């Protein structure tokens, strides 16, 4: 299996510099070969597990749990209560 590390890295928003590329390619090659050890006689079916279902939450509001400052204090750049990112244009 040939893995396009650059393409995968782009999907994951990682940048692999050229000098690291070889090493990552080699590592990934080995890892992917390892994980390819899977049985061939597996029947395909939806990934549902009805025996193990979850309880749903009641539709109830809990207000004023956190202040805005508490929640944004870890952010690298905040202005007027908003998180700031480089300009986005679609």
């Amino acid at each position, binding site marked *: 299996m040939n*893995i396009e*590390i650059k393409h*995968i*890295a782009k*999907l*994951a*928003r*990682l*940048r*692999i*510099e050229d000098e690291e590329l070889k090493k*990552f390619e080699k*590592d*990934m090659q*080995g*890892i*992917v070969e*390892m*994980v*390819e*050890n*899977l*049985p061939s006689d*597996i*029947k*395909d*079916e939806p*990934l549902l597990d009805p025996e193990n279902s*979850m*309880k749903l*939450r009641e539709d109830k509001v809990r207000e004023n749990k*956190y202040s805005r400052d*508490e*929640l*944004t*204090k*870890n*952010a*690298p*750049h905040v202005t007027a209560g908003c*998180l700031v*990112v*480089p*300009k*986005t244009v679609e």
Partner: protein
Amino acid sequence: MELYEKSAFELSQMIKNKQTSSVEITKSIFDRIDSVEEKVESYVTLNRDNALKKAEEVDKKLSNGDKLSPLAGIPIGIKDNISTKGLRTTCSSKMLENYVPPFNATVIENINNADMIITGKLNMDEFAMGSSTETSYFKKTKNPFDAERIPGGSSGGSAASVAAGETVVSLGSDTGGSIRQPAAYCGVVGLKPTYGRVSRFGLVAFASSLDQIGPIGRTVKDVAMLQSVISGHDRYDATSANAEIPDFLTKLKSDVKGLKIGIPKEYFGGGIDSNVKDAVFNAVKILEQNGASVKEISLPSTNYALSAYYIISSAEASSNLARYDGVKYGYRAKEFDSLIDMYEKTRSEGFGDEVKRRILLGTFVLSSGFFDAYYKKAKLVQRRVSAEFDEVFKDVDVICTPTVPSTAFKIGENIDNPLKMYATDICTVTINIAGLPAMSIPCGYDDKGLPIGLQLVGNKFCEQTLLNTANAYENIIGEFKSPLL
């Protein structure tokens, strides 16, 4: 014997009998940290002032005659991927170097309600990815039995601190062996509970469907006590189970009469060190001599579990770690010329190589055209693995295997060889894939004096059976032996 060497169970009795106080115990722990932390390096962040303040409060409550939990006033260390409000939670990553959570994990709320004393945050492999704690951005924790060796991982700090007397008990997290493997390497007791037994709310996710928080201690009783504190349904974790929570300590038995032990042949193959094999067989023999019956069993899909584990855990990790993008919290690159440039630089500078490898693997196995062949197949293999265990547990109560194929390796020995590093998880990952509870307890030492771990695996929500078995064994061979530091 110093206070820091005593078990939580003993200290709890002493507090009850007014032979000591929480402040004295806490001071003893911090004195110990001051004298050995330089050698062990198990902590990322110490919580000294708050711990002493809390100890004083607990002592006051005790002198008021308040009825407190059995673990009230007992020091505990917390793996640094469990959110602690107001106390930095780094996951040993540059990415979260300065991240201070605005909320507590549910287990931290439980620990606070039990009036335990948090000593600090313990070192780990970055985002719990690793088997040696060497991928930590901050420091390399040493094995207290041999400072040239790794303590195991990813909860290396949690195991090493307990073994070194730098805390009394600790919390770790286990995705593929991250509690049991370091417990084995550091000669302490570690329990990975059944998936869903302990709330994951506030545990920084690595692989959501496999992660479980669990206790590490020097004795089985300590682990039992701590497990009672952290167990239970949490309405904030949809995957947490609504199972009955026994008081593990009071129900603790000390004999194994009638216990049916299974020995899976797939776990004793060529990769297992002969010292380890001998110690595990010896432990099984001791249990047998004390009334347990032993039979060989087979878990044929074990062979595929490592693949399934690395596919599922990496896939989930690639998604769980996508949120570290320099926008809401954590590291942000200093210079960038666009949004995408900011994302890529932030993530490339903020994550270490092992984390990047897992993200790349996970992204690959989920990517268009590969999903069915890797991720979906791995999930279907997971069902097969679970079904095999279900079948086996119709006949046996406990499965005994080695925790790790060998004893602790040297720092740097495997760091450039991810495959060799991953292979050390071979005995533990299958248990996470099946969602079962499992313990590692010390069962002897190799020819270099390094601890060997016996893994006990139980059926879902049968932690009590594991604790009973471990307790009986511990009663026979004696409790934890301190390393010389």
